[in-house]
């Protein structure tokens, strides 16, 4: 074999082996386990903490309010839908307080008149005419509306 061909061959071998080495070093451990992606990333996403804990976690301390709400028009609502995620509050209930939404605008998010809201689905009021000077929760208990 002529020398220039040998050199070319050697260079080729070096380049290919360098590429294979780099590929081996740079490919993450679980890549290709299930498909063209890093299989471990699924477990990493699955391990993230859940922020919303569900009504059953509220019952142990706030049983009267949960029972009252479960028998009212608002029975389908989750506690955290209005009060925010409770994951911190459950661990340190004294310091991590949840929000108590008490503005008329908050009630209006569901109950203000909007033609797009299905009429049968929800009670709608004209918040500019229905006692605009008063706070909604002065007359309507949100847990027993």
């Amino acid at each position, binding site marked *: 074999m002529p020398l220039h061909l040998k050199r070319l061959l050697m260079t080729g071998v070096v380049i290919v082996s360098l590429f294979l080495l780099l590929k081996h070093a740079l490919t993450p451990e679980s890549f290709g386990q299930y498909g063209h*992606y*890093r299989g471990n*990333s*699924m477990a990493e996403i699955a391990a*993230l903490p859940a922020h*919303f804990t569900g009504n059953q976690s509220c019952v142990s301390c706030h049983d009267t309010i949960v029972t009252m709400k479960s028998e009212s028009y608002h029975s*389908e609502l989750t506690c955290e839908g209005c009060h925010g995620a409770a994951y911190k509050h459950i661990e340190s209930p004294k310091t991590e307080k949840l929000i108590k939404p008490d503005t008329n605008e908050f009630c209006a998010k569901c109950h203000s008149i909007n033609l*797009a809201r*299905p009429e049968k*689905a929800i009670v709608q009021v004209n918040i500019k005419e229905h006692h605009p000077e008063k706070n909604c929760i002065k007359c309507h208990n949100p847990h027993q509306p």
Partner: protein
Amino acid sequence: MTEKETSLSRRNFFKNAGIAAGTLVVASTLPSFNAVLFAAVKRNTKGPWYGIAIDIEKCIGCGTCAKSCKIENNVPQEPFFFRNWVEQYTIRKDGSLKVESPNGGIDGFTQSVPAEEIEKTFFVPKMCNHCAKSPCVQVCPVGATYETEEGIVLVDEKYCIGCKYCIQACPYGCRYFHPEKRVVDKCTLCFHRIKKGLNPACMDNCPTKARISGDLNDPESDISKFVRTKNVYVLKPHLNTGSKLYYNALNQEVR
């Protein structure tokens, strides 16, 4: 005759035109995507095959879904970063259409068009369609986004290089660039909650239970019953994305 003139010759023009016309004819005979036919076939033999259903007749546009999602998934609170959101469509009596989504619907909607001008108006909650033939997955150059065997489209944030090609590719606008992590972020169907046996945060907190998700393989699941009993439709079926987000009572005006 030079080479350039040859390539623009009449013969070549007719040849290329013939190829283009032939491709169009063949493409037109391909079956279009039908979401219900697609759902009827068992797609994952080993486990669940997740789908989503949204009932527009039940949505009251309160935005609790969008708000819950931001809390659950640490989505930046500033505007324009959403994994899910609500739009209000208003068809005016003059035939024009208005689509609005102030802060993704999180602060609620005030009817911006006077009642006497409105022909029809409705809310459309939107989120990732978790497509079975996702354009976003197909374009990722590094394999950082993928469809799991259970039919959920996820992003590997450690592997994403932030090229944003998938944001361009998604026909539903369901991806955004996370300003702090500098990677693309999207709905995971609350993968971390599903794996703990919980429902996605947006679905748990929906006050009218307008949105559900579940196993399309299980004929007794709520989602299978929804697909069977309602007049369901997916967004942009002509794009053949394999969308698994089924809407009840969706108007054709929704894009």
